[in-house]
């Protein structure tokens, strides 16, 4: 892991509205994302993901706290955003301009016009054949691809992508996932990826943060978060006796033909030994690694229950 911090936020707050209509969209978010990582930002709709991203891009001013990109405070040093490429909440373009002209306008806006790079990016996202067509005739997926090309226009060190695979077909989604992972692995880019597609995040991200109601609930490396929550599926007879034996040491959920034991993969031999020593016949013990989706639902679900 690189020592360079690509993104840091200190107590980031954002309120919308005033008085009784005041909504706290983001409540004291602290993040520290090292360069070279693919970082997932998860949360249900309205959790504050896009608001946080907009604050990172100086589109929205924080009510309190600060956002830093490569050590520079974004609002004070807007120029640091030249190191950032972003795709925020669905790609938006000038509908009356062609795909290529849109990229030209955006690159000129950033004072970094390079026609050859535009052509290369259009080729890379599979839009070179349609580059002369007006964007208003593009499908959502094509706009999303063009959005990715726009984000990469100036070869940024950090990519902030908000739902980048929205509107893409399964093969397109797979391509983009590979593309994102490749950016980090091959080119050392940092990717901050907000997505509600948890499978996608699990496949490409090194670390994740789960945000709910404007607050970070959990943060950590994907493998660490999931290993703490792994389970063992145990088929044994008699099942009720097996449950009784294991119950002292591990939380147990009993099903009709098997037990779910909340234990890590490393604890598997101990579980088997315990059962065998107590004359239980063991037919199968398999490690059931929790998916990120299950983990996410358990974290967010617990929070919802707590609120209720």
């Amino acid at each position, binding site marked *: 892991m690189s020592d360079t911090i690509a993104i840091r936020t200190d107590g980031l707050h954002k309120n919308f509205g005033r008085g009784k209509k005041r909504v706290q969209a983001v409540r004291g978010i602290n993040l520290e994302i090292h360069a070279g990582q693919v970082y997932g930002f998860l949360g249900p709709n309205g959790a504050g993901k896009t608001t946080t991203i*907009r604050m990172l*891009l*100086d*589109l*929205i*001013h924080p009510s309190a706290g600060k956002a830093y990109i490569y050590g520079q405070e974004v609002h004070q040093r*807007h*120029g640091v*955003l*030249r190191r*950032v490429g*972003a795709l*925020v*909440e669905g*790609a*938006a*373009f*000038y*509908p*009356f*301009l062609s795909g290529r*002209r849109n990229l*030209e*306008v*955006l690159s*000129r*806006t*950033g*004072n970094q*016009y390079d026609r050859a790079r535009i052509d290369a990016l259009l080729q890379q996202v599979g839009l070179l054949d349609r580059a002369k067509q007006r964007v208003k005739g593009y499908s959502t997926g094509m706009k999303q691809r063009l959005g990715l090309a*726009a984000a990469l226009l100036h070869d940024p060190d950090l990519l902030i992508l908000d739902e980048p695979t929205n509107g893409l077909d399964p093969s397109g989604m797979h391509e983009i996932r590979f593309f994102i992972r490749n950016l980090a692995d091959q080119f050392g880019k940092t990717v901050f990826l907000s997505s509600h597609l948890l499978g996608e995040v699990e496949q490409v991200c090194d670390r994740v943060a789960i945000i709910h109601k404007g607050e970070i609930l959990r943060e950590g490396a994907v493998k660490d978060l999931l290993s703490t929550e792994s389970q063992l599926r145990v088929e044994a007879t008699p099942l009720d006796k097996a449950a009784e034996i294991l119950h002292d040491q591990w939380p147990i959920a009993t099903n009709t033909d098997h037990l779910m034991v909340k234990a890590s993969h490393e604890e598997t031999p101990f579980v088997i030994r315990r059962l065998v020593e107590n004359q239980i016949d063991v037919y199968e013990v398999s490690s059931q690694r929790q998916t990120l989706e299950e983990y996410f639902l358990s974290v967010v679900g617990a929070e919802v229950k707590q609120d209720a």
Partner: protein
Amino acid sequence: MLNLFRAEWHKVTGNRWVAGCMIWIFPIGAFGFVLVIGAILALSSTFRESFTEEPTRWTDQAVAVWELPNDPTIGRLILVGFTAVVFAGEYQWGTWKSVVPRNRRLALILTKFFTVGVFVIVAFVVMSIILALGSWPLVAMAGGTYGPKPTGEVIRDFLGEYALQAATSFTAVMIAAGYAALAAMLTRSILGGIVAGVIITAAEGFSILALFIVGSLFDVPRLVLLYRFTPTYNLLNVTSWLRSNEPNAINFENIAGTNIYYSDTLLFSLVMLAMWMISLIALTSGLFQRQDITS
């Protein structure tokens, strides 16, 4: 800055309806006007006779074009609409979120004002050329003479008068554009920008009447003096000074028993106009600096 300007140029020219109906309509309209007059001249001998009653001068034709942007019924309205599209279009298309991280907000807004100004100048200079050159064959068809001969002195005088008319009209347009831009940024809508821009521009023109009525009603006759600070008054004053070398004096007799007369120097009006332009641009920029881009 040149790249930013070229980006804005592409946005305007690429939006064919907007560029066509709000900017190129002026030179295209001038060309159409020449064709229509030519057709009528070809068909009507009466019109040919009346066309040559007064001598036609290319210098007058070119200068007169610059009165159009000040015309509150068509010219000003269209240009306010154009400004509203330039400024509020980004909200409508949701493109600010892609644009703002790429450059400083101040630079983005200043470039928009600059672009509006450049388009207005290009459109009306081209329109001047079309009308001045296009009237030549028209006058020839009608059997008249088209003067004056472009001697050094004539061209010098023409350029001076042209620059004066263009500068005053351009200033008026940019102040109206300032209102429209401010309204567009506040309402975040093209229609809102146009409606509010037109209302503010019209209200400013009629402010003298409102000040007069309010001053009379509340027995504060000197309230009408506030009119001195409006762009309308100062534009009239500048024009009066430059054309007649005298102020555009305002004289109100017997408002609530008081006579009010005032006139101002050319410098006063130039400073006031500059202040209005700078203030409107600064206000729009300041507003945008603080604005949250949420769409």
